[in-house]
């Protein structure tokens, strides 16, 4: 969760709150837009940073914006963990990296599309498809995390700061 703290400079807190209230709907509308842009940013970030760009998009598709509460404020979430866990349980390892999913034989299958037999080239061409062949291999190398959650949080925080600065600097 991101909590926003606004400090006033040059105005007493009550006058500042009144001025801020005058742009409250504009802020909510811009914030709503920003949350959707952050979701797009996160999906693009995953797409451009994952090792196999042609692999499936289960995780990207499962990341959606949800409005949690609109009474007395606006509360929105990007990505419902329960849903993502069901659809793309690898979301944690892709974010943080690790070897928890390595060191054992993967189920029989082949890489599709491209070269079906496991090799460096095949790994970058296709996606491992269980049941599509009789190949297997031991995943040995650690999976490097891409920190898409932390990076998207940075994007959101930096844009909220700009949004507030723009709105507040126009208050006169």
């Amino acid at each position, binding site marked *: 969760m991101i909590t926003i703290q606004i400090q006033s400079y040059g105005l007493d807190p009550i006058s500042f709150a009144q001025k801020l209230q005058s742009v409250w709907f504009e802020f909510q509308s811009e914030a709503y837009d920003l949350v959707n842009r952050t979701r797009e940013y996160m999906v693009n970030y995953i797409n451009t940073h994952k090792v196999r760009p042609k692999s499936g998009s289960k995780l990207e598709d499962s990341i959606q914006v949800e409005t949690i509460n609109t009474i007395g404020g606006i509360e929105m979430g990007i990505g419902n963990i329960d849903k993502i*866990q069901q659809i793309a*349980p690898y979301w*944690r*390892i892709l974010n*943080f*990296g*690790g*070897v*928890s999913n390595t*060191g054992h034989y993967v189920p029989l299958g082949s890489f599709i599309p491209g070269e079906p037999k496991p090799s460096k080239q095949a790994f970058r061409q296709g996606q491992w498809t269980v049941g599509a062949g009789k190949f297997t291999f031991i995943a040995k*190398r*650690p999976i*490097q*995390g891409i*920190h898409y959650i*932390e*990076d998207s*949080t*940075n994007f959101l925080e*930096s844009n909220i700061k700009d949004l507030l600065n723009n709105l507040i600097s126009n208050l006169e």
Partner: protein
Amino acid sequence: MAGKYRHTRNIEASLIDFIKIKLEEDGWKSINVEKSFARVYKLQLPVILIKVPTTNYEKLEVGSNIILRNPVIYIEIFGSDDGNKLDLKDWVIDTIKNGFDYYEYTIEKQEDGGKVTRKDKVGYVFIRRITETEVNLGVDKSSLDEHDRYRTLLTINATLNYIQ
């Protein structure tokens, strides 16, 4: 043939050197400081991993072409146990919260990589914010590789005060 690191690698190398010096000063023994994620798994715990994957840029002032660099630094602690992870994390935060010197590194290419031949202090990296995230891989810790059991990620928003 000599060459120079660019900003991102200068920040990485400056921070690695800074942490190594401070570890020694504060009496920590056998802590590995690394910048390659894959190599962490070949090292003995505990390990501190440093990465600078992203930098945000902003104009210093309207009409100027001078840009300010705001690197996002990831420091990941791979502890040998839960207590070690917490102690090391607190130590890292206390140690870097006031920032660190920024050096420009000159390197010489060699067969087994690059060797630092010179480093010049040219700036300072200010720390603006530190966010802590417990690395939870969603499975029972006892089933994980020992390197994945006790991990904490620090996301650091910084500003480099060296402008060109």
